[in-house]
């Protein structure tokens, strides 16, 4: 009996480590990475890896922000505008008046938390509220920086161009972001409660939690990751502009899904999401290495996205999509 239990336990551990949610992002990332190395062996170096991945650092952070919102069954259409705004502040106010800058950034995180509480308390559709917020963030960014400009604070620039021994900054940062967010979201107690919120709000409130505060917390954390994304972005790009990160909104959503997350039910994987973000930027690089005709370069991005996501079919036969009624019923 005891032996059986021990075996069960080991099996369970194994199952948890190679969860299918992470397996697909891991495999698609590896495949693309190998393909990239095959096409361009220069990428297989300290410098090459850094060039390949350093611009993904802010995207990965923003993706974790998006993940936190998707985790509570909402979607954030304002990530791109928000990160742009943070970048604009970091490249201007934060340089001239560091304390004021920090204060504004803290206020932005708080604003995110308030929006989360508001969305939940008044039962507003998150997709529209965040759409509205994206206009507001955009407008604020334009007021701060009518034309692209500003300079990165030197400490940020130094942080993003640091050359640690052995592993390049980009790789170290990706690993760090993945692990930290995994601990926060999957392992920690409060992370578990927040995921529970996405699974079944009622059960969480019945257990005595204040759901509005929890939603505020989830959004506030998302805002925090958005701020981190904006800061690293400025460190990398050295300056900012009102629509510098506008592509992040859709990229982060794609990253979360690519990373094994689902739109409803609190089923997300932070490590998967970081891998998803890396995969997306790898896909872009791979296309650049393939020398397609400019007419088709844009379409090829779409094709790669479809191909990578279609690979999910091979991994989870249940099909993550809501269409899979038949399979659900027979599974």
């Amino acid at each position, binding site marked *: 009996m005891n032996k059986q239990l021990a075996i069960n336990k080991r099996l369970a551990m194994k199952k948890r480590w190679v969860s299918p949610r992470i397996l697909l992002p891991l495999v698609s990332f590896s495949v693309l990475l190998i393909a990239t190395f095959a096409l361009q062996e220069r990428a297989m170096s300290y410098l090459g890896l850094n060039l390949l991945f350093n611009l993904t650092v802010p995207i990965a952070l923003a993706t974790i922000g998006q993940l936190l919102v998707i985790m509570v069954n909402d979607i954030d259409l304002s990530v791109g505008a928000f990160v742009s705004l943070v970048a604009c502040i970091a490249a201007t106010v934060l340089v001239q008046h560091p304390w004021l800058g920090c204060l504004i950034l803290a206020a932005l995180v708080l604003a995110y938390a308030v929006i989360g509480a508001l969305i939940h308390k008044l039962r507003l559709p998150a997709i529209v509220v965040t759409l509205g917020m994206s206009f507001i963030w955009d*407008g604020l960014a334009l007021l701060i920086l009518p034309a692209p400009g500003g300079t990165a604070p030197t400490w940020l620039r130094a942080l993003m161009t640091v050359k640690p021994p052995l592993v390049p900054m980009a790789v170290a940062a990706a690993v760090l972001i993945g692990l930290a967010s995994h601990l926060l979201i999957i392992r920690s107690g409060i992370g578990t409660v927040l995921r529970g919120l996405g699974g079944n709000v009622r059960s969480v409130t019945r257990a005595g939690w204040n759901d509005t505060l929890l939603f505020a917390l989830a959004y506030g954390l998302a805002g925090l990751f958005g701020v981190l994304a904006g800061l690293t972005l400025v460190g990398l790009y050295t300056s900012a502009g009102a629509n510098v990160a506008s592509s992040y909104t859709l990229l982060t959503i794609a990253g979360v899904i690519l990373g094994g997350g689902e739109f409803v039910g609190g089923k997300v994987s932070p490590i998967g999401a970081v891998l998803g973000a890396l995969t997306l930027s790898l896909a872009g690089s791979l296309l650049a290495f393939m020398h397609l005709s400019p007419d088709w370069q844009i379409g090829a991005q779409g094709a790669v996205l479809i191909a990578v996501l279609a690979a999910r079919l091979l991994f989870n036969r249940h099909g993550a999509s809501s269409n899979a009624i038949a399979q659900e019923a027979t599974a």
Partner: protein
Amino acid sequence: MSSLISRPWLWAWLASAVVFALSVALSGAGQAGGLLYAALSFGAFAAIVGIGQMLVVTLGPGNIDLSIPAAMTLSGTLALKAMGGEPGTALLGLGVALLVGMGVGGVNFALIRLLRLPPIIATLAASLIYQSLAIWSNRGLRIKPPVALADFATGRSLGIPNVALIAIVLAIVVWVLLERGVWGRWLLATGQNARAARLAGVPVESVRAGAYLSVAVLAAVSGYLLASFSGGAALNMGQQYLLLSIAVVVIGGTSIAGGFSNVPGLWGAALFMFLVVSMLNAYGFDAGARMMLTGVIIIAIVIAANARRSRS
């Protein structure tokens, strides 16, 4: 049920009335007709794509079509290329647009159904391919529409813009379908709980396919009309309709969680979205302030509409 319908319906219209009044207050009553005419013209395009988006959104959480701008561009480009500016080819162009719409809708649905991609990603990725197709087919050349078609698209009947008449007829058809039609009931049931709907005998797959085909066809028709209206298709045509289509759907009172849609509110929201930009332009706000105000107004409407609903 009737109380549920009337409330969100009301809010979008109320908001447009207020914004309209504010604009007229600035420009003088004499210009009210001109503003209304412009609002109807441009609101029509938002309404047509909005109706399509609404059908898809009604399917339930996660259902959304992000390929609307690309479908508009592709349809406008191919239709105008097929017509080549020759007189008497308007119907040929419409046919091309409809074909493009069905093709786009079919591909989108196939990606969602066969490859089980989340709609938001499937339509986004596919839209990049449609965009490439449009670039490849015409290299961004702006071909003029046939004169008669351009005149029709910019013209009016009974004092109402022709494009608005088309959009109104489309809205009425969809409204009747949703309120009285079996297909509408099936769509609403699928949006509430697809699994339960399937087990109750609703053909959910064809309902889904129908919704995704409809949105693509409506986007294609709208692209065809817009290209004719603005004197030629451009590769960046329709970009604004991505966010606009979502905004009009939700401001119009359709539930983003699915299973509940609202056609009259959608028209109100379409007028509102045009009027609010014009008003802010007229009051001379610069881009930053204008964007912020637009955002604030959108959120305020959603709060107002929702607060009403949850209080009752």
